[in-house]
């Protein structure tokens, strides 16, 4: 997937979200340039995950608007987001436990499917050719993330780090324009973290995918991201290049300092 013509891929305007009156996000606005890796940081409960959920339509904000790939919406619906090329991984892995690695990755291709289910079960018409094409693409993603040794293993039985990678593969299989990663390196050791950030960098370079990621490890974020947004208690307190953010006194006070 190549980045669309306009340089700003995603713009959030004054987004607010609350559950049963409890404010999770308060009038947050920021931009993500096409081709950037953008980091969302902030203490737990700062509303980072909620923000991702707003971007890909899992939650519906009470106010504000989302401009994505040239279209402005009051709110994003999950399938609109998916069809618009937004893919996502979750904080606590949301893989399909009962399925093999390959099948999980293949589910990521479902929006690219053209043949009807009838053709598929009768194995008629374009279905078999299409199945091959999707398998090939899935295999390329699997090779890219180096999970081919576990191709036919049930994901439920894989170690945590690998599951994270499989989930990334599933997201990547849909050839996303925008990739939302919710703590892709949570609970990993330094080595795994390095590997994972290498993968993310490669994805961003090879496929030109724009990435928005949440990460607690400041070192990783500063090393990986072109652009960092800092949240605290549902508010935006910092926004800019890693250097600018590191310099921002409010940020230091609220987050880096502590």
């Amino acid at each position, binding site marked *: 997937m190549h980045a669309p013509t306009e340089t700003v891929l995603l713009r959030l305007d004054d987004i607010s979200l609350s559950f*049963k009156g409890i404010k999770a996000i308060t009038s947050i606005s920021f931009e993500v340039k096409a081709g950037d890796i953008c980091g969302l940081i902030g203490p737990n409960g700062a509303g980072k995950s909620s923000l991702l959920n707003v971007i890909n339509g899992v939650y519906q904000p009470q106010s504000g608007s989302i401009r994505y790939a040239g279209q402005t919406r009051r709110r994003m619906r999950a399938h609109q987001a998916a069809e618009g090329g937004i893919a996502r991984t979750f904080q606590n892995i949301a893989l399909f436990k009962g399925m093999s690695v390959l099948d999980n990755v293949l589910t990521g291709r479902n929006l690219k499917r053209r043949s009807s289910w009838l053709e598929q079960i009768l194995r008629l018409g374009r279905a078999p050719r299409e199945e091959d094409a999707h398998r090939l693409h899935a295999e390329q993603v699997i090779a890219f993330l180096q999970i081919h040794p576990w191709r036919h293993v049930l994901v439920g039985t894989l170690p945590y780090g690998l599951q994270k990678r499989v989930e990334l593969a599933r997201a990547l299989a849909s050839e996303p324009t925008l990739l939302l990663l919710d703590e892709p390196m949570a609970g990993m050791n330094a080595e795994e973290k390095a590997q994972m950030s290498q993968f993310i960098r490669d994805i961003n370079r090879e496929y030109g995918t724009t990435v928005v990621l949440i990460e607690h490890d400041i070192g990783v974020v500063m090393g990986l991201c072109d652009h960092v947004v800092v949240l605290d208690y549902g508010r935006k307190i910092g926004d800019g290049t890693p250097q600018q953010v590191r310099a921002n006194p409010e940020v230091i006070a609220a987050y880096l300092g502590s």
Partner: protein
Amino acid sequence: MEFFFEVLIGGLLAGVMYALVAIGFVLIYKASGVFNFAQGAMVLFAALTFVSLLERGVPFAWAFLATLASMVVLALLIEKVVLRPLVNRPPIILFMATLGLSYMIEGFAQFLWGAQVHGLDLGIADEPLEIRGMLLSQFDLFAAGTAAALVLALSLLFNKTRVGLSLRAVADDPLAAMAVGIRLPRIWALVWAVAGFVGLVAGLLWGARLGVQFSLSLVVLKALPVLIIGGFSSIGGAIVGGLIIGAAEKIAEIYLGPIIGSGIENWVPYVLALLFLLVRPAGLFGERAIERV
């Protein structure tokens, strides 16, 4: 109009009987998150045991106590043999387990006491009673009274005793409850025992109404829509739901029956429940959780 109210109140009173079964459900669902399909079987077992004891010349009070004791034993067994091994399994598995359970209990009850129909007389004259020109069944009134008493007792148990407190704790958050040293198994056994007691009362009333027989265990099917409307986790809801279903059923029977035909009471409650669901997916009183991802 008179007649309508007569029907309505008749229905409401009948609804109380449904509520009785539903309460047993709610108790167990609240405490252990189990959707206990075996509740009907427990009703049957209780009634059958009680009646058979009576027929063997055991005095009423003793028969009642003996049955109660057997229900408690049953509860303990269930907790040990079924619930404990299945702890933290997905709810659907637990539900299916209770299906198996209901088969076992039904089979056992009939194996023990035989399958023939027993009459049960609680000594309440069932000639209609005229109040303000409306004919009401004395028995229904009695049933309603019993139900009211039962609910009162339960709410006391829950709100005034330590057991009740820990029970509510478990209902709110099992892990936290365990953390503060509440022993889940004991609570579960207790709740199932209480549910057994509720089942016994329901069994007696229903038994006196329909005669004690296998079909008693089918009252569970009446209780389901009640739960849907009331929400699985609220005793108040169970009662309100029961009343609504009872009334709706009677009214439908009287006013709709002649038009589309008899025997509709089997499905009217379900259709009603469905309509409710489409409006309020978690029932009237059930609380709805936000999905965290």
